[in-house]
Every structure is written in C-alpha cells, then in structure tokens.
C-alpha cells in the first residue's frame, strides 16, 4: 500500500467502568473497543460491520472524540500536511480540525433540531468555524442543499416538514457544508425505507467522488456495506476479527464469524432460510468468553479457541489478478479456509 492513509487508528481502546452503587449488582470494566487498529485511505469508504453491542458505534465516536478513548492513537493527516493524534488533544486544540472531519447520524428524526430552520441547521457548522458573511453562508447552504437533491426553497422550512429520506439528506448536507475530507456515517441509511435507502446511497457515492471524501461507514447491513464500501472491517465484541477489500471479503471470508453473518442475510434470490449457522446471541460484553470471544457460537471451535485469544494476522491474497492485503483473527484460518470449497453464495 503506497498511498498515505488519511486516518490511522492504532491500538484504540475504549473501556467503560461500571461503578458499584446502590442499584448495580456488578463491578468491572466493559471493553467496548479493545485494541483496534485500521487505516482509512484517501477517497476510500471503509465499512465497519457487526451486531449491536460489538462496539462499532463507539469506534466512530472515539475517532471523532465525541468520547475520550481510554488509550490508543487516532492519527489524522490534515489538509495542510501535518499529522496529528486526536487522542491526547483538548477540545480547543481539536477545533480547527472539526471542519475536516464530520459525522452523519443514524436517526434523521432526532439528529436535527426541530426549532431551527434547515438554513440555520446548515449554516451552524460554518458559523462555528468562524464564518460571519451572511451572503456567503446562504450561498453555501443553498449550494449544499442542491447537492443532496433538495431545493433552495426548502431552506426556510423546519425539519418536521420533511420525510425521513429528506431529513437524512439534510443531515448529509450539514456534514458536507464545511467541505470535510473524512466523514463518519453511523448507520446512515438504516432507518430508511428500501427505495429511499437506495437514493441516499447513490447520493453518498456521488458526493464521495465529487468532493474526494473518505468515509467510515458503520452499518449492520452487509448488503449495504457490500454496495458502498471499498474495504470492510468486521467487529465482534470490541475486537476486529477480519479486514479485507469488500469483494474479497464477500467472495471468500476468512473468519467463521464473517461467514456466519453472510449466511444470516435474507436474500431475494435465495429461497431458503439458513439460520442454523449462527446460534445464540452476542455474549455479555462485561463478561466476555475466554480465548477467542466467538468460540461460544463458532461451528469450528476447538480447545485452543477457549484458552488463547487469536491475533489479527496478515494474509496475502489475490483478487482479479491483483495482490491484495487482508487480515483475519482466527487460529484455524489455514485449515478452515485454505482450500475453501466453492461457497454457495458465490454462484450467483
């Protein structure tokens, strides 16, 4: 990989301590994110998938410092060419970079203030960045609202006058108005109807190319991730279990959890439910299983998996004749996946 990454996350940890009090029975530490490392390249969409409670949202929030990570590094290579680590920075120190990194939220209903007009919502990030010229503000808001497929006349309205899909577009316009380089999109299309979801995905892809954006795209929906992401990281109980280019991941998963997740997705072309693959639910994060956290649900689990936590290892692979780089955290990668029989979901 020659290109300089835009964002580098190194050994990120986010531990929440549970205090004992009159009403809580337990004490301890929840390792919501444990020792997570990955890179996001310029103009790349990096997907982060996993079940609820796996820590994917926490990663997004920790990168933007909406919460203070316990330890680790989040290195951002800024527009001016300097590299900064967000983790030790104070809110004041980080402010100049806020314009360059933005967020799109999941719920289009609760993430827009009902008491502000769309114009005020869109202008606010610029005002916070120090812009005072009213004409310029309006011009920017007006341009951005058109970029997401709405009209300037919509600027006067309040959020309640819009549908879920339109609100999500307003959320996107708000994130883009400061001309960021990196956007964290947390379940950005999960709350939308399928037809509207497709529209919003198209807008994101269009804007990514137009404004040369990088995304951290957090989602539980593998089909959406497959559609929009260049590379994908799969998380389970706070740890990364697999990272690979999207196409490689979906044609040949190298971790039993990824494989199981893919089998669980209902498919319009597949007339059979495969619910036999992944039994049980995600374990309690406060009391995770020993060894490989996935061994309690893994169909290939052996004794070693119960005692030793597997590290994320690098693998060389080829995809369409090109060398690619991928990672998997499974003790038995070689045995399980080295000679994978042609998997059913590749045949289509």
């Amino acid at each position, binding site marked *: 990989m020659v290109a300089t990454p835009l964002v580098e996350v190194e050994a990120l940890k986010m531990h929440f301590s549970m205090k004992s009090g009159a009403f809580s029975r337990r004490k301890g530490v929840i390792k919501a994110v444990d020792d997570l490392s990955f890179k996001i390249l310029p103009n790349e969409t990096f997907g982060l998938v996993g*079940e609820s409670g796996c820590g994917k949202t926490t990663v997004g929030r920790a990168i933007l410092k909406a919460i203070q990570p316990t330890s680790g590094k989040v290195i951002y290579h800024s527009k001016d060419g300097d590299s900064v680590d967000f983790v030790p920075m104070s809110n004041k120190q980080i402010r100049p970079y806020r314009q360059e990194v933005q967020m799109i939220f999941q719920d289009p209903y609760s993430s827009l203030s009902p008491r502000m007009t769309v114009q005020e919502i869109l202008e606010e990030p610029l005002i916070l960045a120090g812009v005072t010229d009213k004409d310029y503000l309006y011009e920017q808001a007006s341009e951005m609202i058109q970029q997401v497929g709405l009209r300037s006349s919509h600027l006067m309205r309040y959020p309640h006058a819009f549908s879920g899909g339109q609100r999500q577009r307003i959320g996107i316009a708000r994130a883009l108005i400061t001309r960021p380089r990196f956007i964290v999109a947390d379940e950005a299309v999960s709350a939308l109807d399928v037809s509207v*979801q497709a529209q919003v*995905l198209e807008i994101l892809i269009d804007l990514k190319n137009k404004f040369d954006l990088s995304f951290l795209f957090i989602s539980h929906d593998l089909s959406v991730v497959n559609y929009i992401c260049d590379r994908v990281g799969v998380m389970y109980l706070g740890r990364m279990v697999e990272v690979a280019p999207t196409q490689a991941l979906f044609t040949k998963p190298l971790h039993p959890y990824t494989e199981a997740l893919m089998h669980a997705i209902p498919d319009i072309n597949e007339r059979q439910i495969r*619910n036999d693959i992944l039994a049980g*639910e995600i374990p309690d994060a406060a009391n995770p299983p020993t060894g490989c956290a996935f061994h309690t649900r893994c169909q290939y689990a052996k004794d070693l998996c119960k005692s030793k936590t597997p590290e994320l290892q690098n693998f060389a692979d080829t995809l369409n004749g090109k060398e690619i780089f991928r990672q998997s955290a499974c003790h038995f990668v070689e045995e399980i996946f080295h000679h994978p029989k042609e998997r059913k979901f590749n045949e*289509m």
Partner: protein
Amino acid sequence: MRNKLLEYKNVAARFHTIEGTTSTLNDIDLTIYEGMSLGIVGESGCGKSVTARMPIRLLPEPTFKVTHGEVIYHRDGKPFDVLKAKQNGTQINSIRGKEISMIFQEPMSSLSPIHTVGSQMRELIMQHSDMDKKQAKAHAIEVLEKARVPRASDVYDDYTFQLSGGMRQRVMIAMAISCNPRLLFADEPTTALDVTIQAQILGLIKDVQREQNMALVLITHDLAVVANMVDEIAVFYLGYIVEHGTTDDILKNPKHPYTKALIDSIPTLHSTEALKPIKGSIPDPYAKITGCPFSARCEKVTTRCRVEVPPFVSHENGHKVRCFEA
C-alpha cells in the same frame, strides 16, 4: 379446495385527523386461506399495518373509519363481518389474541414493563381459556419452550427489560401462539433486530407456523425478508394493492413498475450492479391523488395513468396487477 379464513372485500378506509383526511386504504381485495402464508410488502404509509390491525379492531375509532367494503371472518362455517361487530364486544374479544393474534415490531413497547413475562402471558391465557393459575403457568412455560426461549421457567419470572431484543421477540411470539391462533399477523417482526437474530426469529416463525398449522401474514418493507418465508406476496403502495401473486411470480416475473423498482433498489450480496433507486418520494398522506397512485414516480407513466385508477386485473395463475401497461 382451500378454506377461506379472512376476506377483505373492496375495503376503503380513512383517518380523519385535525390535519385532514387520509386515503389510507383503497379498494383492498384480499383473501387469506387456512394455513397459507402471505407477505404484505410496502413502504411506510402504504397501509400495510392498518390492514393487519383492522380485523381485530385495534385502530382508534372513530378517527379511523372504514368507508366502504367488509372484512369477513369465517368461523365454524359462520362467516361474519368483523367491521359490523362492536369494537370491544364479545365477538371481537373472542377473536382478538385468541383466533387472530399479532406480533408487533417493537417488543419493548408492546410488552408491559411492570409485569413479569409470566404474569402477562397468564393473563392472556386465562382470559381465553378455562385454565386456572397453575395450569396457565404450565402452559405458558410450554409455549415459551416452543418459541425456543432458553431457561423458559426462569424467563417466566423475568421482567421484559431484563431480556435482550431477540429474547423479547421470542416472548412476543410465545404470547401470540399461546392460544393456538388460526391466523398470525407478524408486523415487521424483525426490523428492530440484528441480521443474525433476524434469521433466528424468521426461522422460528416459519417453524411455529408449520407446527401449529396456522395462517401467517408477514408484513415488512423488505422484500428479501419475505422471499423465503411466504407462498404469496401482496405489494402495497399508498393504500392500494398494486400486485398480488405467488412469491415466484412476484420476484421472478414482476409486472407492476413499482414491484420491479422495489426489487431493483435492494442491494444484494451477489451483485455490485448499480442500484436503481425509485425517483421521488412517497407523497404526503393528506395529499389528494388522482389516477394511479404510483403515477408520480413511474417511468412508464402515460396521460391515462394520471387521470384514471387502473383496475386490479387478473393474469395467468391468479397473478393480479393494477397497471394499464402490464
């Protein structure tokens, strides 16, 4: 010959609110037979949930008003119109929760947070049977086990907030099947769940349907969810059924432009082909729409579509489509 269970005949319904009147359902013709499984698919506001709630009269009356048509429930060879019965009268009470039951989307807001799982299940069971408290408890634990709730007798004493989302949905399913219903409406039963849990819950609903030999109506916005669950699919758009046929016909040979567009806008794992989103969005529910409900977003729209509502026409194999161009 299949036995009819529930029949919607030319039903039209409106909500009268301060903001105006909606045309929630228009000209709904639908028959549910014993033991069949039907998927109702459509986007928000298409009337799919209203269709499910109408037969057990769960809608706020008189804000909700049926303006035309009848809903016939067939019981012991004595069909009657549920819309003519009293909303909370004995006739409806004997059906609701017993013969027709329902699984809702959000298990947390549809289960009581201040009663244990056991006490709310017992209440339902004792309401609809002659069992005493002890028998009701035994029966409740039995159906919890049927819904694959692990440690059923412990969960019986738990409060719903102590359970995970998937487990709450299992409890909902257990409650819904506790009185051996003839018909189960599942209204977006897995939308709030993770994919892995979704697969488990869908598998469970399918198994339960087979074991209990009941009819299933699965309501969802996601065509992929119904694809492997049901025999027939009805596609709703703005209160109209725009297409109805066997699952194969709908998915492999869709005739209505909306159904086609809906299929094209679903991302799948097998293709990286560009999605073709449906242009525009669903109109405001209070807007007056003339002509075909889909005409504003349809690519094949003609002048006739904008004036006249297309009739619901039968094609081969009982495949019905509401489109002039099909």
